[in-house]
Each structure stands twice: as structure tokens, then as C-alpha cells.
């Protein structure tokens, strides 16, 4: 049975049995090619659900709008890490959730109207093809490939001279429209009042200009240090293609190197910034 058929069947049963009020999954979008998020409330709607390589969205974000409501959700492995993250941070309740985990071979870059030809960068070096948490598993777990260099993009950036990096980021940030799509799409961004909208004190001025944009983009990334689960949504949704994943993945790489931590692998491990070891040597202030 195809993954789509399995998801439909699971969704139909859950909705019919009133186990959940809503199943969040994917349906085909209006370009006839790409997937879009879909909320099924009735068993009859289950047949609109699909799964394929265009299912790029991280649906875990939507759980933040459904606190306390029984919900089933279709997740890819990276999205399942987002669920762990939100459970770890006490944002959602496990007992209200039914997780339909999908074994994922990787998804493609979203291109309007045409099937994306290129796998997302993150998927090319993915080491987690089976969800880390689920109630129903769709697909057969696969053995994980050994990826020699999981951060080639970051390493490439690090190797550049400082002024070249500076120029690169200045140009990237100068494009930013401050539409906050990166924040809105991110499952880890849920502050009731974002620092970018805080008025008193005013952290980021309303000028949509390079200096302000730099503060916004760097701090957005830093707030996700040790929390980013690598779903790549921020970069996917950016209307001006800012390479946001290069920021998040740099932090991910360093968090892994320094603290041996990967966000969302389980729902219990304390995130790196809420714990410490007295004698750790981190190369500063020594």
C-alpha cells in the first residue's frame, strides 16, 4: 500500500472513531504539482490527503494553534523532531496527539508549477529517515546511511575569508523584506511577543534596512541555537531566497560539536542552554 493510501486509511479511522477532531496532513495544491497543508475534520475528507516528495512543510507548527485539542498529524522525521522539541518545551501535550510518522526519502525544493528537481540541501545529508516519535508508522524503516560530512555547506562558508563572508551576509540581509515568514513557518518560533515586535525596549527598529535586518536575521537564528531541528522551512518560505539554513546549520554544527546535542531527538534531554557542566572546557574565559 502506498504511503498516501496508508495515511488516508489511518486518518479515516481516527476521524471515524472520533479519536481526534482533526488530522493535519498534506493535500495537492492549486498548481497541481506541489503539496500544501490540509486540515481534515471529517472522515470523508481523508481522501484528500497525500504524501510525496513535495510535502515540504513542517506541520508541527500548527500544533501550537491546537493546544488542548485532540489532533492527529502527519510528520516526516525532521517534523517529528519538532514535536519532541515542543513536548520538551511544554508547548503541546502528548496525550492529545496522534502522530502519523512517515518514513521519508527526502523532499524536493518547492518550485511553483513544476516538480522540484533538486532535493533540499538538508535532505541530501539527512541521517534520520525514520521519525523519532510516532504512534502510527507509514513505510518501512530504513538503515541510516553514514554521512561523512553532514555540513558541507557550512564548512564551505567557514572556509571563506572574513570580508567575503561579511559581504555575502550584507547582501543577503539587504534583501530581507522583514515579512517574518521564516519565523511564522518555524515550529520553534512561538514567543507570544517576538523580540522583533517588542516596543519597549525597541530591539529591532521598524526600518526595513540592512542594519536592522542583520539584527533580525542573526538573532532569529541564535534563538534557535540548540533548538533548530533542521526542517529547512525558514529558507523554503523566504520570498527572496535568503540562505537562512546556512545560519541555522552553522549553529547546529557547533552545538553538536561543543555540546554533543541535537534538538528534538527525544523529549527529555535538557537543551544545551538550560544546562551546563562545571568543568567543561569551551575555550573561552580560560
Amino acid at each position: 500500500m502506498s504511503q498516501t493510501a496508508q495515511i488516508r486509511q489511518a486518518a479515516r479511522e481516527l476521524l471515524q472513531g472520533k479519536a481526534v477532531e482533526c488530522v493535519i496532513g498534506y493535500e495537492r495544491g492549486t498548481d497541481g504539482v506541489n503539496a500544501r497543508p490540509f486540515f481534515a475534520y471529517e472522515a470523508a475528507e481523508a481522501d484528500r490527503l497525500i504524501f510525496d516528495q513535495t510535502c515540504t512543510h513542517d506541520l508541527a507548527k500548527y500544533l501550537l494553534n491546537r493546544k488542548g485539542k485532540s489532533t492527529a498529524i502527519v510528520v516526516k522525521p525532521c517534523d517529528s523532531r519538532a514535536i519532541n522539541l515542543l513536548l520538551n518545551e511544554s508547548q503541546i501535550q502528548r496525550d492529545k496527539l496522534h502522530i502519523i510518522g512517515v518514513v521519508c526519502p527526502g523532499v524536493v525544493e518547492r518550485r511553483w508549477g513544476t516538480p522540484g528537481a533538486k532535493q533540499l540541501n538538508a535532505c541530501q545529508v539527512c541521517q534520520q529517515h525514520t521519525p523519532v516519535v510516532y504512534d502510527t508508522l507509514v513505510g518501512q524503516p530504513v538503515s541510516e546511511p553514514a554521512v561523512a560530512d553532514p555540513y558541507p555547506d557550512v564548512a564551505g562558508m567557514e572556509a571563506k575569508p572574513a570580508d567575503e563572508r561579511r559581504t555575502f551576509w550584507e547582501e543577503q540581509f539587504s534583501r530581507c523584506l522583514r515579512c517574518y515568514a521564516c519565523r511564522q513557518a518555524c515550529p520553534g518560533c512561538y514567543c507570544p511577543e517576538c523580540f522583533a515586535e517588542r516596543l519597549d525596549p525597541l530591539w529591532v527598529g521598524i526600518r526595513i534596512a540592512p542594519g536592522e535586518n542583520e539584527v533580525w536575521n542573526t538573532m532569529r537564528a541564535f534563538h534557535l541555537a540548540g533548538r533548530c531541528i533542521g526542517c529547512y522551512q525558514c529558507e523554503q518560505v523566504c520570498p527572496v531566497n535568503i540562505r537562512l539554513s546556512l545560519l541555522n546549520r552553522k549553529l547546529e554544527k557547533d552545538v553538536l560539536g561543543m555540546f554533543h546535542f541535537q534538538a528534538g531527538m527525544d523529549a527529555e534531554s535538557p537543551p544545551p542552554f538550560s544546562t551546563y557542566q562545571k568543568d567543561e572546557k569551551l575555550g573561552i574565559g580560560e
Partner: protein
Amino acid sequence: MRQFISKQNLISWLRQQMEARQLVAPTQVDDLILFRRIDRVDDVILQFQNTATSPKEWLFPKTETLFHVERKDGKAELIPAEIDGETVIFGLRPCDARGITMLDLPYLADPADTLYRQHRQKTVLVGLSCLTACPECFCESMGSGPEDTAALDIMFTEVRDGYLVQAITEKGRSLMPQALLSPAETVKPPAPETAPVPSEGITAKMRQAFDGPYWGRVADRCIHCNVCAYVCPTCYCFDVRDYTNKGSVERVRSWESCQSPGFTKIAGGHDPRANKGARMRQRFSHKLLYFPEQFGPLHCVGCGRCVRACPVNIDIREIMQDVQRMGAPK
């Protein structure tokens, strides 16, 4: 009267414009095509479908100073911003030019928005008609079309070896030296057809569809980013705040979107439109109901940018179809 300009002459005309005033044209930035200020004529892109963001930012910038405060002898004085320097925007698609006529309606209404009016007066709008239709474009259903010359001063249409030239306004004619032109011998290529959407009678149907669960269902998947408003050539909401930097004070305005969570929240915390569905409905009601009731035309030119850019495929074409169907007697 239509005239002809060779590609070579067009390039030299662009160079002249670039030297005489600020030239803004589509150019390649990584994998995007964007309107940017041009410093090398070679950077101008002549063949493209449309830019990723709309050219409205050249008349209604993302961020703009309204005035700054100067202290003189202990007294504060307000120095209003003035737009100096002329601009030529080259390569406007007809839909985007029509978008500018939409900005005109609220902004030039009395009392006129001074800065917008200055931008408008000091900018020459040069169009490039569409030879192919973007798959997500629906300009013809929104009162425009691939050859629409609304708001344009000059329109170019690509033909073999060059372009047909149509100087539409006096401003356009004064900028187009006859020496570069010759009589047009080529016939105009046929305009492409765009996919239709049911825009007829949409305003009345929107009124009927106002209440009901539909908007909440659409808003389920909306992530409430501002992408749709910021890529749109007609959206015109803004925010105003003071900006201080090392003792200097200026009042600036910046783009804002009705989809952002704090859009209608007033001091003290009350938000009359706190609900996601109501925010979603506001966007489409403004475009298809309120604006037409206030100013006449639908507040959309069918460029299709929001359709392409929306991260979760909230598609105004689909919404219009759904609303038309909802309004139909059962």
C-alpha cells in the same frame, strides 16, 4: 504611433537614462530577478517573466523617512523629507504598472500623501509588454492585460531584432529621442492569453460570503507571515514609528500587513481582529469588497505573485472560485 528601436539603440538609450537619472530595472540577484538600481547597463535583464517582488517599493519604499527632528537654539524643528532626483523604472510589466494606479487611488486622494506624490512625479514608468503569460497570472480577469498601458509613460514590445516603441505620455515622449527610432515595419506579435478567473460580480458574492466557516478553514493553514502583502503590487498598508539613533530623531514608515498578528492591536491590548479567520477574511475583503466599494476597481491586478510566493498555497484564484460558488443559490 508605433515606432521601432533596435536592441542596440535600446541599450544606448538605457545607458543615457542611467547617466541622467536613477535607472531601476530587473536584474539577476542569485536565482531571483529583482528590480534594482542599475549601475551597469549589462545588468539589465530584458527577457524574464516577472520579478519576484513588485516594483512598488520604488514609489512606496519598504521604509521611508517622513521627517526628521532638528534642534536649533533649543527649539525643535521638523524637516520634512523631500524626494530629489528623477528615476526611470524600466521593464515594468503591465500588471505592475496597473498596480501603481491602484496605489494612486488612496495615496493621491485629498490630502495627498506628499512623498508618494513626489515619487510619482519624479518617476518615469517604462513598460515591457508580455509575450508569454506566467502560469499563475490572471491579469485579464482583473481588468488589465499583457498590453495594458495604464500608468505607463513608454511601452516597449519585443519583436525580431528590437522593440516596438509606444510613447504614451508627454513625459514619455520627451525622454525618447527620435534619432534612436525608426518607423515600425514589423507587426505587433499577438498578445498571450491568460487563464481566466471568475472575477465578474465577485464584490457582491464577497458580501454574501462574509460570515461562515469558510475563512476559518482557509486560515487553518495560513501561517500569518506578510509575504502576500509584501510581494503584492497593490497592498499599501504601513506602520509609522519614531526612530532614534544617537540623539537624532526621525519618523519613519514601513510596510505592514493585515496578516501580521499585531496589526489591529491597540495600546492596552485590545485587538478587535484577534481571530485568524477574521484576519484572513480582511485580506480578501479588502481586495475584493472594500476597496472596490471605496474606489471602484478590484484591488488586485492578477500578477500572480502571492499565488507563487505563499508558503502554504493560499491562492486568490481559488478563493474567488470558492466565493463565487458559495454565493450561488443551493
